[in-house]
Structure formats: C-alpha cells, structure tokens
C-alpha cells in the first residue's frame, strides 16, 4: 500500500507545484483550475492510501518474501456472467440517441437503464458463479 500511496502523493505534489507556477506566471484560469483539480484527484486517494498504509500490515502482495499460500482466500463475490452490463450499455446508447434524434429515445433508454439497475442489484445480492 505504501508504494501506491507515495505514487499518487508524488504525482499530486508535482501537479500542485506545476499549478502554482503556471497560474502565477500565466494568470490563465482554465489551465490553472484543471491542474489544481488534477492535483486533488491524486492527493485525495493518495492520502487515503497513505492513511491506511500506516495502519495495516503489509499485504502479501506488498511483501517481497510472500509465498503463494498467503494469498489464498476469497477475493470477492461476483456473478459469473451477467446480461446487465449489456442492458445498461444499450440504455446509455439510447439516451445518447435522444440527444440527437429526439427526446422520445429517453423512454427505451431510461427504461433499459432502470431495468439494468434493478437487475444488477438483485443479481449482486444473489451472488453466484464466476
């Protein structure tokens, strides 16, 4: 966890320095804001990782001398196959078509998206084969 945290914090710090230099030199708002936001996008998860890395034992994947047995166990519970990504994708497709061809495309679009939302949630609760 330590390396991941340092990676993000380092990037964030660099973007922060760059944002300060750029804004003070060029007084251009758009780029300054975007670089500042880029800094936050690295610092926020980075500091979260850092906070945790100080409070937890090194994971097997952080331990250079770990044996494969240490990784045994459950990673997570996922449905093995699912139609709902496809459903949601088609829903998003129709929503985008509504931007172009007319508002009525929202009916199938949001309908499919809602079906996917309900279906995927139910499926996630059920668990199943991966």
């Amino acid at each position, binding site marked *: 966890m330590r390396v991941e945290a340092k990676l993000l914090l380092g990037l964030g710090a660099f973007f922060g320095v760059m944002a300060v230099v750029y804004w003070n030199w060029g007084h251009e708002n758009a780029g300054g804001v975007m670089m500042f936001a880029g800094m936050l996008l690295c610092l926020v998860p980075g500091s979260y990782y850092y906070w945790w890395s100080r409070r937890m034992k090194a994971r097997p994947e952080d331990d250079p001398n770990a044996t494969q047995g240490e990784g045994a166990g459950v990673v997570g519970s996922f449905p093995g196959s699912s139609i709902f990504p496809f459903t949601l*994708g088609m829903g998003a497709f129709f929503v985008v078509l509504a931007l172009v061809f007319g508002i009525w495309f929202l009916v199938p679009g949001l309908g499919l998206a809602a079906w996917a939302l309900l279906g995927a949630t139910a499926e996630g609760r059920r668990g199943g084969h*991966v």
Partner: protein
Amino acid sequence: MVDLITPPPAIIDVDHDGDEGHDEHHGATGILKWMTSTDHKVIGLSYTVTSVVMLIIGGLFAEIIRAQLASPNGTLVSLAQYNELFTMHGSVMIYLFAGPFAFGGLANIIVPIQIGAPDMAFPRLNALSYWLYLMGSITMLMGFFTAGGAANFGWVAYAPLSNSINTPGAGADLWIGGLLLTGFSAIFTGVNLTATIFYLRAPGMTMFRMPIFTWNMLVTAILILLAFPVLTAGLIMLYCDRHFGTHIFSVAGGGVPVLWQHIFWFWGHPEVYILALPFFGMATEIIAVFSKKPVFGYKSMVFATLSIGALSLGVWAHHMFTTGVVLLPFFSFMSLMIAVPTGIKIFNWIGTMWRGELWFSTAMLMALGFLFTFLIGGLTGIYLASPPLDFFTHDTYFVVAHFHSIVMALVLAGMGGLYFWGPKITGYLLNEKFGRIQFWFLFIGTQVFTFPQYILGLDGMPRRIAMYPHSPQWKTLNDWSTFGAILVGISMIVFVVNVGYSWKKYPCGDNPWDAQTLEWFTTSPPPHHNFYRLPQIRSERPTWDYNHPEHRSLAHGTGGTGTHHEPPLANAIVGALEHDQDHDA
C-alpha cells in the same frame, strides 16, 4: 527448486447458492456468452477485434484521402465529403482504435495475468466499458447515414467551427454522443485497471516487480482518470452551446472560443500519452523477451514512465502556440522536458538489446520498427515544441507527418503485441512468413508515406485541404505519400490473410517465446481465473526464474538486506568493458 510450486492462488468466491452443479464453463455459448461474459479475456478479445475493425475502417478513410490527394485537383470525393473523411479518419483512429486497442484490448487481457490476478477488479464494469465503447463507435459512425453526413469539423472540433451555425446537422451531434459513450468507457477501464493493479496482485508481486507493461498501463489508467473527465465536461458544454443556447465558447454571448482549445487539449495531450505508453510497454516486453535479457534499467524505465505521465499534464498548450494567448516559455520548456524520459526509454531499449541473444521474430521486427519510427516522430516533435519552429510549421503537413510517424510507430508496436500475445490469447501462433511480409510492407510503407509529408510541410502545404496548387514537386511528393499509404494498406491485407491462413493451425504451447513474465506461466489460452498454480515471485520475471533456475534474476526490492541490486546487464556491460580493457592493456 521444487518448492516453487505452491497451492493455487486466491480465487474469487464461488457461491454455490441455488445453482449447485451448474458449471459456468458449460453455460452460455456463442453470442449469448459474448453478450453476458464478465471474463476479462472474453471482453478483452471483443475489444481487440472491435478495435482492429476500427483500424481497418479508419485505414480505408485514409486510403480514400490519399487517393484524392494523388492529383492536385482530385475529383474522387467532393470537398464536403473530404472534410467528413479526414474528421472521421482522425476520430476513428484516435478515439476508437488506438486507445481502446491498448487499454481495452491487450491490457484488459494481459494485465491481470501479468500480476497473477484471477480477473479484473470489477468484472461487470469491465463488460459495461466494452458495450459503451461498441455503442459509442456505432453512434459516431452512424453519422455517415444521416442526411447531413458525418461530423466534418476535424477531430479536434474547434469552436466556433463546431457550433450549430457553422456545423449544423445530426452528424456532429452523433460525434459528440459517440465520444461521450467512449469517454465513459475509457474512464471505467481506467478505474478498473487502477483497482486491479493496486488490489489484485499475487503474493510477492510488489509494485517494483510488476512487468513494465503493467506499470505503463497503471500510469495510462491514472492519466485516463485525470484527462477524460475534462473531455466529457467539454463535450457537454459544446452540446449545450449547440442546442441549449449557452455561450460558453462563442464570443457573441461573452464566451471564450479558446476555452474549448484549453479543455480539449488538456485532455488531448495526456491522451497522446494514453495512446503511446501502452505501446511503449508492449515494445519493452517484446524487446526483453526476444533479447533473452531482463529489461535494462527497470527502475529508470518505471520512473521515466511516471515522469512522462506527470509532465503530460503540463504541456497541452503546445498545440495552441499560434493562438497567441498561451504562455509560450512554460509550455515550450515542459514539452522539451518530455524528451528526457522518452530518451531514457530509448536508451533502455537499446541497452536491453545490447549483447543480447536476439531473435528476429515478427514481434521483435515490429518492435524494432516501432523504435525507429518512433525515434523519427519523437525527434520532429522536439522541433515542434519550439514556438518559432511551430509558428512556421503549424497546420502544415509537417505536423501531420510528425504525428503519423508517432502513431504508425504505435501501430507497429501494436502489431508486435498481437504477434507476441496473440498466441497466449488464442493458443495458436500466427504464420511467421506472412508476419515478415506484413512487417516489411508496414515498415517501408510508413516511411514512404511520412517522409514526403515532412518535406511538403516545410514547403508550406497546409493540412486538411482536398486540392492543392499545381506544382511538379508537390505532385511527386504527394504521389510518393499515396504510394506509401497503399503499401500500409497491403500490409493490413496481409495481416487479415495471415489470421485466416493461420487459423488454429500452429498450436503454441504455454510459453512459445521462452518469455519472462507471469502470463507465460499459465496455459494458452489461460483457464477461467487464469492460473492453476503460480510460481514463487521473487523478481520482475517469475516465469524466467522458474524455467531457468541457473540464470535467475537478482531479486528486485527484496528489502531487508540493505544491498542495492544492479540489473544483471549492468554487470555484464561493466564486465565486458573490463574484459576489453584487459585485452587492450
């Protein structure tokens, strides 16, 4: 060395509630399997196939463009159709081929296997990424079937050209919509890759033992997360300007047209590295394997990638030098700085090959072709980072030639990646003879079509024109360029023929190349959840260590001993130098 075999790694929980004895492996088949699968290998293969189809579609557009330019007053397409063609050529190649091929296709398949993970961190989100990408591609290409034709404002959609008065019609809106969908697909893939690399590594696979390809994909994923939301926001603003009467990018209502360029290129330049870094990773892996050596300067490679990623956020306005409202010294300096880590990479690639046992397979030839072509593209990029030179060459064919050198280098590396990892994905090798023919057509074609464009650009030929003044020199140069494009087209035909010819003909076994990283430890194609067993991971090339215990890597980052580990190559070179000196003395 028998103790290297260990119990199976972590598996994702198999919850037997309700459907005992119903094995997923024997579940859905055919199109239903393709539609419902959440296996990263199936999704990655869909991504790869779709993006290669996009490469062929975009390539056809390019061939039509080059055919039009073969004569000064070409009449193959109308001026309006020409605008649509170059817009969609750029859009298809950048948005729908290069990125998705790398981070959706090969990375999706290879990264989890390289780090010993059973799947991507969010399998269903991964599937959603693919569907958004596919539907986004279809949306964008649907423009050709509308009355007004496809989008025709260039792949950069500069305001005010892209507003509803200058570019009315559904084609432009479909372009925006398709880009929204593929943009979200990229963001989801970025999330997925980052989470997979941070959380699903096998025991012992510390960050500094990850293969370079995985490192590059991590940096790519972080760049995606930094850059793509900006583009999505910009597209929504553009859509609002076009339809809801806002004036974000129009001077008339108090807006700022250059803001679009800032937003677009704040995405667009990191995007260049989002495109390039995965292919750097592919070339690194290929060169290391076919030189039978570890990657030279592993850590410097990682830090070079990281610094390219970090610097890429501060260089966007070098696309905007001629607007006259950007901070020239800042962007020039930052752009020139990128040459440093890129140069480190080039030297590391050469160092990896140095005194290696080179095997010129198709994949290796492609990687070497990448190295050469990328060097030309990179060096001309350094010219363009200098504002005075950019003022002179901006919007000429010099810029076109520069980035086509870069992206054709990426195509070479990507083809190398297909020849290299294709056997792992499918279980079958591609024919090497056809591969070599393809390489030479692709490599020579690339040089023949870009070199005349450099000269044309310095001579002042603007980009995005369908006709040009009569001049024997320009005609000859354009003809050469068209000839090169035809060679590249032939290389793609050879590739398709090769895939058909080699179809299930040459079974490859688990490790046909005597490769080094973890994906070659498992079967080809890998089983569900990728591994039956894992070797002990003590360096960045565990498969090599397992297969060649007598030449094991020095462990990276074992820690605790306090010793600093030189890469073996450094020792070899130092040793060789000493040996030579002894002889001289």
